[in-house]
């Protein structure tokens, strides 16, 4: 009985979350899809928009797709590592400037990005000259830029989770003679797998859809990510003609995210419970 209520509630929420997506799907399979059309039921059904998108001369969609995935995977992995290291220090160690450091991290994130564009241009004009492999129009350069934000929200997220790992665990390990490195890798890390999985997924999604920085950074059509490239499909005078293709692209964009989620799902549920028993 109680389970039925749970299902009822969840179905309601699923309906809420899928409602706009159904609209996107309808536009994607509708040969005359437009952003302004107002129907959930498409006037026709075809995969023409998907085919157009994948074979387009104007929009190198497949390249964008690969760029996005490479970027999001590399960036989320690296940022996860960087922020986990920092979160460990913030959670487990007591040092001068700890709380100030955390607050600073938060505040720096609050800075409006559109104002930072000028400074970004300054930095990367230099880098482009000196190290073209990390300059404008390169995914590696954009990744470098993203790593500036790696400590931001992720550190906070993971610090909160690390705080829930009982301190006695590391204390007993310390007594057993473990170094801080060992405690970190062998005790803490296995215990926080669900959090790593969640944070990793969030980071992946974040990098997949990041737009502001990517749009000033990637100008070469073949260096663009999905977010930038697809935004470009909507600007200018091609807006309506492209909407069907755009909707199709939006759906394809969701595929890698769902894939990563499926992959990480087992870590999310594997849970601390099992780990805690071992500890």
């Amino acid at each position, binding site marked *: 009985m109680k389970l039925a209520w749970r299902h009822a509630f969840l179905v309601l929420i699923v309906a809420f979350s899928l409602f706009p997506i159904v609209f996107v799907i309808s536009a994607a399979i509708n040969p005359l899809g437009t952003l302004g059309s*107002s129907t959930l039921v498409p006037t026709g059904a075809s995969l023409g928009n998907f085919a157009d998108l994948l074979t387009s001369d104007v929009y190198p969609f497949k390249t964008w797709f690969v760029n996005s995935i490479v970027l999001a995977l590399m960036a989320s992995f690296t940022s996860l590592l960087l922020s986990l*290291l920092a979160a460990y*220090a913030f959670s487990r160690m007591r040092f001068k400037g700890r709380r100030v450091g955390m607050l600073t991290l938060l505040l720096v994130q*609050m800075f409006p990005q559109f104002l930072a564009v000028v400074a970004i241009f300054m930095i990367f004009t230099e880098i482009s000259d000196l*190290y073209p492999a990390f300059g404008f129009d390169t995914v590696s350069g954009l990744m470098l830029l993203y790593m500036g934000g790696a400590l931001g929200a992720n550190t906070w997220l993971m610090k909160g989770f690390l705080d829930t790992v009982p301190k006695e665990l590391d204390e007993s390990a310390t007594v057993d003679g473990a170094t801080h490195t060992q405690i970190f890798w062998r005790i803490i*890390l296995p215990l926080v797998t669900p959090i790593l999985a969640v944070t990793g997924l969030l980071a992946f999604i974040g990098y997949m*859809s990041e737009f502001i920085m990517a749009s000033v950074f990637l100008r070469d059509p073949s260096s663009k990510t999905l977010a930038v490239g697809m935004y470009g499909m909507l600007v200018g005078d091609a807006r309506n003609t492209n909407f069907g293709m755009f909707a199709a692209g*939006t759906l394809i964009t969701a595929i890698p995210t769902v894939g990563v989620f499926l992959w990480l799902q087992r870590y*999310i549920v594997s849970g601390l419970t099992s780990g805690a028993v071992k500890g």
Partner: protein
Amino acid sequence: MSAPSVIDPPKKAARHSAARPARRQVTTAFVVTRVAVLAVAAALLLYAVPPLVAAESWVALAVVIAVSAVLGYLYLSRRFVPAKYLVPGTIFLLAFQVFPVLFTFSTSVTNFGDGHRGTKAEAVTAIEASSLKQVPGSPSYQLSAATKDGELVFLLTDPATKQVQEGSTDGLAPVEGATLGMTGKVTAAPGYTVLTTAQAAARGKEIAAITVPTRGGAIKANGLSRAVEAKASMVYDASCDCIQGENGPWKASEATGYFVNPAGDVLSQGWQVNVGLDNFVRVMTDPTINTNFLGVFAWNLTFALGSVLTTFALGMAVALALHHPKMRGVKIYRILLILPYAMPAFAMLLIWRDMFNKDFGLVNQLTGLTTDWLGQPTTARLAVLLVNLWLGFPYMFLVTTGALQAIPRELTEAAGLDGANAWNAFRRVTLPLLLVALSPLLVASFAFNFNNFNAIQLTTAGGPFDVDSIRVGATDLLITYTFRLAFGSGSAQFGFAAAISVFIFAIVAVLSAVGFRRTRKQEDVYR
């Protein structure tokens, strides 16, 4: 950087996070770590240094070497344990976030913006260049670039007379016996090596640098095949620090960063000057800012708090609903629930905007209403909160799901078995434990939503606006409002925007700091 597999079983030397010099056996892991650190440092230096040397960027080189030295010391030493964990991320943070923030703040005391982007010298160059006009009655020469004794010169053909002259930085000189091509360009001339188009193109920069002085002005190349005798009608005169020319003299004003003439007009090409606290004074005294500030601020707080609370409540409710040992279809539910988060946010914001359209939108169409959702203040505010809820709850759902795994099921189940009702169990046991993990995140989420530019800009763009105050809309956040003030009129005023952002920054800082203090209690629950 390292993985557990490499590390040997526990060492004898016990160490705690505090620096405590101790006897320590030299283990494989120890050696490998140190070698790895050195190798990475060496590889980085090997990659980073040569271009800096080539470009003669000595300051940058010094910084790179100093940073490498500090890093090497840090990781080779046994002290500074927290720093070892913090430094990798911090380097990126400093370079790509802290520096841009500080740089932007530094522009808040300048007039940096459109018309005032560069230096005075750049402004002078721009003014002179844009006043260059072809000397009346002078021909448009056919140009061939050529070399004479290794020196790059112009061979100029007058299209009317077919007379050929050599143009160099020394001036014009006649050329005899030149062969002309179909278009009139010189193809060969005794004593000269005429460059092919490709050769000339490769030397484009040198060609652009050549100025042939003439009586009426100077001849400059205009592309690869044409040259024009032109004269600047505006010229900088150092003796009066002014621009001489039409309606002049235009005197340089270091206070405003403009050249001003006696009539009070300015030349549009200005330069960046220090304006002290003018931008801040403007923020404080501008009536459009201070009369609207409280209203915008109040809505901004409501929006940020509302977004955090609704997304958290819904996300947690969904996570809790799924968190039951007998629940079926969990995987499917999870996938369907994170879909809103997996779609590109900007696309979905635009789609929501259109769904709220009065006559064409799905919302009215499905509900049979005729509400102009985004056209009225109250409904527009509700709509943006709803959209933000839609966008944000999967995030909270995922995070809560993760956090729930961290709470031993025995705890929640025990509370249930004790006969406490479900609500009490949730309130007394689950929620406090969740908050330990999530309260820092909630603070961060508040701060994020406080400045959630896209959520507003892409849906309502701050509107709806009222005829009485067309500068501020009902759903404007401080950030969208700033954006409109600083860039909305098309020309960017970075200095002013930076000054406003300093204020906003201060506000968010205070609010977040207060919220952050409250997390201190939770931090030590487990200690």
